[in-house]
């Protein structure tokens, strides 16, 4: 597969590993904020290639991990109404809410369907005008433009039974929050596919304000190793800046057209991130002009507040202060089959990937 297999060359990866070993002059901790990176790092066994000096931490970058319990409860409540179909990405199906996971709600008769894209949800609304079809819109800047395009499409066509419940989030404010709260890291493996949309400029504040190294990174093993080498060199040279490793996909300014769609449909809002709390301008709300598509307005749901706190330390893990093995629930009470916190639920959550690839040693 072009643009993929070339970057999985074991020889390149081995050379990069050698250079990292050679140039790593002290201990380094780098945080990947993208769940896709977390998964790639484990899947390609990157840890097994790195010297102990180079530590990787998983930040908050999985939209499923940070989706608040209240959102899941709302989806499940809406889906149990006879006239409503809730469509969602497969990622959400196993997320436990206080009531039930969407998967469990489906088993009890709620009309919940897995879609691969927002336009599949719109197709469903078109094909059955009697049903109210809600699209559970999760995801970061990578996913939000697709929702925006679909919503504008629905408006143009005058589809009246299509709604969106937005839990879209934006990444840079979350990274800033982590830094403000004092994460102990030397730099970021910046999210490559978020950056395809936002451009690498979105991360310029990190070296400028916080003096940390940044590499906007692709998702193949050679990409990740090359980015780590870039980060180590930035730290060694005391010249933190935003370096684009993933040049074949990312530019400084990003995808202007996609940004335009996003701005047209959404406005920034303060948003709850599970485990991190309220992040100023950390989410995307549907603009007034599209209010009749906003499921939050069309179907107000009155739900009790979030569930009681457990011993789950998801928040600390998302912040990079703790690792999964620090959690007393990990691999005993909390497993992929019986997830407690969001980090275990999502297949790219830190705890899930840690369990899957390092297991319960």
């Amino acid at each position, binding site marked *: 597969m072009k643009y993929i297999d070339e970057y999985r060359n074991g020889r390149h990866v081995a050379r990069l590993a050698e250079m990292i070993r050679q140039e790593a002059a002290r201990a380094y901790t780098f945080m990947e904020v993208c*769940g896709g990176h977390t998964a790639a790092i*484990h*899947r390609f*066994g990157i840890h097994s*290639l790195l010297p102990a000096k180079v530590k990787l931490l998983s930040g908050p970058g999985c939209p499923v991990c940070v989706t608040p319990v209240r959102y899941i409860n709302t989806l499940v409540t809406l889906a149990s109404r006879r006239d409503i179909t809730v469509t969602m*990405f497969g990622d959400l199906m196993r997320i436990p809410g206080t009531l039930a996971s969407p998967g469990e709600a489906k088993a009890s008769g709620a009309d919940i369907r897995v879609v691969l894209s927002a336009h599949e949800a719109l197709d469903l609304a078109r094909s059955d005008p009697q049903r109210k079809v809600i699209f559970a819109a999760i995801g970061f800047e990578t996913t939000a433009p697709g929702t925006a395009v679909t919503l504008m499409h629905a408006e143009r066509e005058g589809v009246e039974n299509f709604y969106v419940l937005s839990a879209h989030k934006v990444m840079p404010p979350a990274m800033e929050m982590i830094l403000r709260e004092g994460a102990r890291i030397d730099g970021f493996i910046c999210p490559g596919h978020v950056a395809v949309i936002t451009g690498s400029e979105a991360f310029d504040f990190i070296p400028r304000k916080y003096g940390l190294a940044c590499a906007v990174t692709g998702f193949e*093993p*050679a990409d990740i190793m090359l980015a780590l080498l870039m980060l180590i060199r930035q730290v060694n040279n005391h010249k933190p800046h935003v370096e684009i490793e993933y040049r074949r996909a990312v530019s400084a300014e990003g995808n202007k057209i996609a940004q335009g769609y996003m701005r047209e449909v959404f406005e920034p809002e303060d948003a709850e991130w599970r485990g991190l709390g309220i992040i100023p301008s950390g989410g995307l709300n549907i603009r007034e002009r599209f209010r009749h598509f906003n499921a939050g307005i069309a179907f107000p749901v009155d739900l009790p507040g979030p569930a009681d706190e457990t011993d789950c330390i998801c928040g600390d893990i998302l912040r990079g202060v703790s690792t999964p093995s620090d959690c007393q629930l990990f691999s005993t009470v909390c497993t992929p089959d019986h997830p407690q916190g969001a980090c275990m639920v999502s297949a790219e959550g830190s705890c899930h990937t840690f*369990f899957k690839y390092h297991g319960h040693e």
Partner: protein
Amino acid sequence: MSEKITLSHGGGGRQAQILIRDHFATRFGMAGPMTDSAILSAPSGILAFTTDSYVIDPIFFPGGDIGKLAVCGTVNDLAVSGAEPKYLSAAFIIEEGFGMEQLDEIVTSMADEAEAAGVRIVTGDTKVVEKGQCDGIFINTAGVGLLSSDLVHVSSASSVKEGDVLIINGSPGDHAVTILAARRGLSFDIPLLSDCASLNRLVRRVAEKPEAVHFMRDLTRGGLAAVLNELAAMRGCGIIIDEVSVPVQEPVRGLCEILGFDPLTLASEGRMLVVAAPGEAGAIVERMRKDPLGSEAAIIGRITSGREGRVILNGTSGGKRFIDVPSGQLLPRIC
């Protein structure tokens, strides 16, 4: 309008008799009067006996249908236990309104597959349920096979030891992704056929030297990952798999990459794992390759002593990781 299955087809009356006689018994080659049991001559020796139920959606898919699957699945369970499949039962639960033409097509493909595999369908049952109580058609098959005494060790993996070699007969996951693509509503297309096939002839080639074959298992739900972990747990051994030697087809890889699946966890219905003595593995692969169902046979890994009960993947790019037991159902992901 074409003929449909109605509740009276399961009612024990005339229509039921016609259904059984004209649509099932003749196709399955059941001669003579209908009795309550199939009367078979008893072979001496050891029997293997298995059962499985088939509830696939969609019922017809590229490369097969629920009928073919119901025969292959049970034949394969017997075959990989080291048994020569002989007799099958077939029980149908049919939703009223199901098309007679489709039923005939399913029964015909069962008969064809049974003939190809050299087994006989000797007894059966039909129930018709009301609309909505099942999804079209469900089939259960049970099977009996003769187990040769020199292959008794195969299903328990009791002779698996350090240094043994792991062989697979072809690309894993073709069945799972074909089914996924054939399902309504998912907007993608895959230029593949299900790998659904009866493996008993291939097993015969593999087992020409029975003492060299230490373990066999077909790769159904949970795929290669599930079987490897089961084997590692059963024997308390370690397993190392070389990713580069697992023959995953390009479209399966592509689909897995984009939907976030691991090809090693995908179900097949005509793929098997063989664990063999190291000195014989090459010869076994050669013999397998002479069969169309083994043309891509490949050595993919080995049994180790360390890392008891764990399966390690040597990645294409040089990294190592564990292959864990797949958890939960396959859900396409965007992140």
